[in-house]
């Protein structure tokens, strides 16, 4: 079966979800672009958007319409060539409109799993539940006569378990997009050892056509991305708890300080507690629970997460994309308060921020902002100068940052020594492209 034949009938499970909708968008565009090529005229391409929520699927179609138009507006020069034989399509507007229709016309929104029984390729993006994934994929495989291939977007379940329990030997791999898939260029590719070479070849080809950067990860729970982020987040929670005890201050103040250090001092796009909120406290807890049984030498959990969940503070995002309140309370893209787990209420930043900033000390004048440094050609020099100043500073904030940077490095190195990542470069690429860090965690800045 050729690349194109493989893509003539595809299903996405969990298509209305955040990851599923992005995967669906990218795949629908890839399939439509194939269908427009001269050799493929007349061939039918079908993409089943399967989800339990009819409401979600209605929203998905609206999302697709808006996104596909934006995509089309950026490649109109190419589209004019593809529709050159259509005399009825003259203006850019006509052509873009036709393309939007053609993409939507590939998509079949359905709530029944049976649609996947004809597919050659199935993307799985349902919730991070091993039993559910195994059941769905196994059921489809039993009812599908095409010997289909399965790409799972799981960020934490080992692929070989899915392979074994669903009986998919050699025909499954981990194809882990980052959120949001339409924007983030990173994809972690996980093969099981049994995965057929042709399945992997196809995956690499497909990723290339989607203009994604592939980083291979070994099949260990959490892979590289969550393998680093989850441990980094746990470290943040441990640091905050320890700081509160040591300085005898309420935990919310320590959370504010650790968040500030991880953002401003470590020059990251957001502080660690804001990132946990962004991913969702519930999701972080869930992924840790999935990963924990597979690691032997460490405990991947923290009671702070459990407390937050019990108190019903979960973070994550609204369907509009707006940030929900979590450790931090958000207003218009900024945070204005921190959750107090003891009083179970948000404490206004204004009431304690100055006092905490004073404890951390002043940032050296060589400080660089993540936003300005990320595209700067002299990035490494600027960062080195700033981090060197931190190393010679006696301030609390500087000391916390150095310690955090070193821990982050150790986590990265352990991913290599544990053979999750083949080399440190892979860890760095994941953090640079998947998490938009300005520098990879495995570096010499903090030594």
């Amino acid at each position: 079966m050729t690349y194109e034949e493989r893509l003539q009938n595809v299903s996405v499970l969990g298509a209305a979800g955040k990851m599923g909708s992005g995967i669906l968008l990218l795949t629908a565009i890839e399939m439509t672009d194939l269908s427009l090529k001269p050799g493929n005229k007349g061939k039918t391409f079908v993409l089943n958007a399967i989800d339990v929520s009819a409401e979600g699927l209605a929203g998905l179609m609206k999302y697709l319409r808006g996104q596909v138009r934006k995509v089309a507006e950026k490649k109109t020069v190419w589209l004019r060539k593809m529709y050159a034989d259509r005399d009825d399509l003259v203006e850019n507007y006509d052509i873009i409109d036709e393309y939007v229709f053609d993409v939507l016309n590939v998509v079949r929104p359905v709530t029944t799993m049976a649609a996947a029984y004809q597919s050659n390729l199935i993307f799985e993006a349902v919730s991070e539940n091993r039993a559910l994934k195994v059941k769905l994929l196994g059921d489809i495989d039993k009812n599908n006569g095409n010997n289909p291939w399965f790409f799972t977007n799981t960020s934490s379940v080992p692929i070989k378990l899915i392979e074994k329990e669903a009986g998919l030997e050699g025909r499954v791999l981990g194809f882990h997009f980052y959120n949001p898939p339409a924007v983030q260029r990173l994809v972690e590719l996980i093969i099981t050892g049994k995965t057929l070479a042709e399945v992997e070849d196809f995956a690499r080809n497909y990723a290339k056509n989607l203009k994604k950067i592939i980083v291979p990860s070994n099949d260990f729970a959490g892979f590289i991305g969550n393998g680093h982020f989850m441990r980094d987040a746990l470290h943040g929670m441990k640091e905050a708890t320890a700081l509160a005890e040591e300085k005898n201050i309420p935990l919310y103040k320590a959370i504010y300080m650790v968040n500030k250090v991880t953002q401003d001092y470590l020059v990251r796009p957001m502080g660690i507690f804001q990132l946990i909120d962004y991913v969702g406290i519930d999701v972080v807890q869930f992924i840790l629970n999935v990963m924990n049984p597979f690691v032997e030498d460490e405990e991947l959990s923290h009671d702070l997460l459990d407390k937050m969940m019990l108190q019903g503070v979960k973070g994550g995002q609204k369907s509009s994309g707006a940030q929900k309140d979590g450790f931090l309370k958000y207003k218009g893209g900024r945070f204005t308060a921190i959750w107090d787990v003891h009083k179970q209420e948000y404490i206004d930043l204004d009431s304690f921020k100055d006092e905490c900033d004073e404890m951390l000390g002043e940032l050296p004048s060589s400080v660089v902002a993540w936003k300005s440094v990320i595209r700067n050609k002299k990035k490494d020099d600027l960062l080195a100068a700033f981090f060197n100043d931190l190393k010679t500073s006696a301030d609390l904030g500087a000391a916390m940052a150095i310690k955090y940077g070193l821990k982050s490095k150790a986590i990265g190195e352990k991913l290599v020594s544990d053979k999750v990542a083949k080399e440190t470069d892979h860890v760095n690429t994941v953090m640079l492209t998947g998490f938009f860090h300005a520098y990879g965690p495995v570096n010499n800045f903090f030594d």
Partner: protein
Amino acid sequence: MRRRIYMTAGYNTVSMGTGRKEFNPKKARPGLEHYFKEAGQGTINQINDADNIDEISIGNFMAARFNKQANLPGFAAHIDDKLQWKPSISVEGACGSGGLSLMYGIRSVLAETADVVLSMGIEVQNTVKAIYGADILAGAGWYQKRKEGHAYFFPGQFSDRAGAYYEKVGMEKARAGMKQWFINSIENARLDPTAQEHQNRVPDLAALYDKFKPNGTAFVDKLSVLDCSKVSDGASSILVCSEEGLAKLGIDKKDAVEVMGFGHVGRNITNDPEDLTELQTIKKAASKALDNADVTIAQLGTIEVHDCFSIAGVLATEALGLAPNGGGADYVAAGNTARDGAMPMNTTGGLIGWGHPTGATGVHQAVTIWQQLTGKAGEAQINISNHRPYGMTINMGGDDVTVISIVFKKG
């Protein structure tokens, strides 16, 4: 000419669009109504009484599509109550619409049907994304050619012209001229607070130009976006008067420019240009205007040329006979068209630097010449010597199709 014709009381709104700090494509912006009012009142505020205006002529290209608005003559009285019940007309000749608006005023005064005509040009085109704007602007070409044309139709047309010119003189030489044209445009725009590139602070414009290489997969083959004029919202306004009209308005001749001659030429839109490296219509219109004014090109102190693309600026120097055939790029690269050069051109930035609200451009050019010849150009003022007291505008609609050239002298 059978009557002496003057222009006075010019006014330009800001040319709004990318480049201006206050421009935010995601926020609502003023529409046609605002630009009519601001430009019209900007002129009326310089005279004694709006009632002295006899007629209103409006140059506009595509409000019917950019703004879904036609019947623009109806906006005259929106500017000022005293314009209610007065004759008002809208004229269209693509990007030459502004020039046609001036021509309407000139002809009406010559015909003695008016002594004072409020001549305006207006275009509000940031209402759609550039990719759809390209469809609308493509109306300046022959629609039968749209299907085979580029997604960015007009950049595509001038990309072809640039390509032919690269073949003729060599790409490196051609782009050196185009680069200097771009640099002059931005440097001049920085001197005019209404210019779209007024706030441009890029320290090394040459390096910036070199960085933007033509890329046919995203845009056109032979031009980069820096070779193109801007997408602009804006309006310009000026009064076209007889001698009696000026007196009626109470305006001194020294605050006016006199129209010495004009050339108004049309080319068959259904034909391709005979030679892509020549602007034949511009050549004819400019030479007619100079003949009509009985002025030689050496007597001109400054020229406003229609540089919708940098290549059009370079080719215009050849069409005007300032540079020999194929020598335009060198002429520009040597600094001849800079504000302190042998023949200063587009002293407030032209279409690339000041902006290109398509239907308004012809009027904007006249306002710039009026400012320069009457010493009202502010920081952008150049020295106009007594030996070369004339100025000229060349306004082009479409790909060298509808061209209006006017020669002015200080009043």
